[in-house]
């Protein structure tokens, strides 16, 4: 147990001093703040247009339509986070997972670690728990920034329900990012070259984030990014009809759908439906975790330091 804790602590300590990690973290936090700003900007623009329209309509003696933001949940202003997490957050998670293994190999310390009374399972759980702790801290920082953004936009602190939904959204995001962290671990264990391992992980990220959603939505160009429900049917070609069947297992699609539900629909969502959408994310995470664990168990850590 103490070896697991020591390995996790060392990983977090090393991460905090890595420029790559700090830079990507800064970008994610910046984008979280920007997401709030974009929400506030669009909110105030629409309100200004609405106020102007109401004035014009009243001057013409016509009835004014209801305020479009009156019925829209406050948290929907943070919708851009549903895009930033799979983009910047996932890359950050890949870096965390990649460094968890590659830092040790590059420093040539894996040989020393495994000459100590350390079980391979302790090493694996140390790396995974250290990485998960780092992701949890990042998500907590994003949550804090989002709370500040929502408070500023609405000129009042979020309600308990809103705070719970925000927490749920970042818990889901953290779970989603664990998948990419594990992809970083797996590629770092499979490939000896640092650059190739990182490139392979990024290739998988592209596949999960862009290629799969495009295929499962019949190549609708905005589908890979925007968290919107299907406005049109998939393309009628047999190929896209077949690939659209794979949508339930596209983790990116499920993450976006669940996040949209949490931020814009809240309590109106059906729990059973949400569980079905969460299942592929959890299953893929468990499969990757199992694979990474097996690789750590079988890996030859007596090898020389990793190549640059």
């Amino acid at each position, binding site marked *: 147990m103490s*070896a697991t804790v020591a390995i996790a602590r060392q990983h977090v300590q090393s991460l905090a001093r890595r420029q790559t990690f700090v830079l990507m973290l800064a970008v994610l936090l910046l984008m979280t703040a920007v997401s709030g700003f974009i929400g506030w900007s669009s909110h105030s623009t629409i309100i200004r247009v609405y106020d102007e329209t109401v004035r014009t309509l009243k001057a013409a003696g016509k009835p004014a339509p209801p305020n479009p933001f009156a019925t829209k949940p406050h948290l929907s202003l943070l919708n851009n986070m549903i895009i930033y997490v799979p983009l910047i957050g996932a890359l950050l998670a890949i870096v965390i997972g990649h460094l968890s293994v590659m830092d040790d190999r590059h420093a040539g310390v894996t040989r020393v670690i495994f000459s100590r009374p350390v079980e391979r399972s302790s090493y694996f759980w140390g790396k995974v728990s250290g990485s998960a702790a780092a992701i949890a801290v990042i998500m907590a920082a994003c949550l804090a920034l989002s709370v500040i953004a929502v408070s500023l936009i609405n000129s009042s602190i979020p309600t308990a329900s809103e705070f719970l939904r925000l927490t749920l959204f970042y818990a889901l995001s953290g779970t989603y990012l664990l998948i990419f962290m594990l992809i970083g671990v797996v590629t770092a264990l499979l490939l000896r070259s640092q650059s190739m391992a990182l490139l392979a992980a990024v290739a998988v990220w592209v596949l999960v984030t862009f290629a799969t959603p495009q295929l499962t939505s019949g190549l609708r160009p905005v589908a890979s990014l925007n968290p919107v429900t299907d406005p049109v049917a998939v393309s009628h070609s047999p190929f896209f009809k077949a690939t659209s069947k794979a949508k339930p297992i596209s983790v990116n699609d499920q993450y976006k759908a669940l996040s949209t539900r949490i931020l814009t629909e809240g309590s109106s969502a059906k729990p059973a439906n949400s569980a079905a959408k969460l299942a592929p994310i959890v299953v893929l995470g468990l499969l990757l975790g199992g694979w990474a664990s097996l690789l750590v168990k079988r890996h030859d850590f007596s090898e020389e330091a990793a190549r640059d």
Partner: protein
Amino acid sequence: MRCPAYGVFTVTPSDLRPDPIIEIENLGHSYDDTPVLHGIDLTVQQGEIFGFLGHNGAGKTTTIHVLTTLITPTSGTARVCGFDVVGQRLHVQRNLGYLPENVRLYDSLTAAENLRFFAKLSGVEDVPAAIDDALGFLDARELADRRVGTFSKGMRQRIGIAQAILHKPRVLFLDEPTSGLDPMGVRQLRETILRLNADLGITIFMNTHLLSEVSRVCTTIGVLAEGVLIYNDSLAATLQRFPDEASLEDIYVRLEDR
């Protein structure tokens, strides 16, 4: 006898019984289908400084990897401190220290943070005391709070040795410890090895190319060629056996030619 710098009860040469601390029988290892060790038989006694010689690719590092439990041998058996390297891995690991060639440690952490990490892995109970003892023994206390990334090769080597002796092992494995060191660094390392052996009673198993150091430090030598142990005896006996050769280098060349 209590070692003042290290703060532990140590073993004097007279206490040392001629007990085998490393016993290797018919040890073989292959990488995929390529054999690198061919049935080695070797015994290292407690308190010795054993120099393991051989050209690049002879199988020296593979032997150390087997003895430090990093790899499982394909045939034969090896025991360290009486424990089998395959069946009693954790017992073996608790009794050994290991410094690989070109170990860099974690550059982003300080020396003390690196040592704290390895002390925790080694199950050391009083970590601050162990770190202070090890750094004190190596005259490296001033390096404790500096990041390893800023260290010279010699400084890294001292911290590397500190991590290897934190848990007070009975046997220390050094893989090419002089690699990349300047003459002053080599001299410091030689003195450290002698003190580790004399003051703390640690048996040293050292892979090296530097024959001049072997002749100054080692009590026993073994020569490995193409995965076969072609020679094993005490340094004194070796020098007596080859009276015509001017140096250990000449003896080594003659053994290799044989």
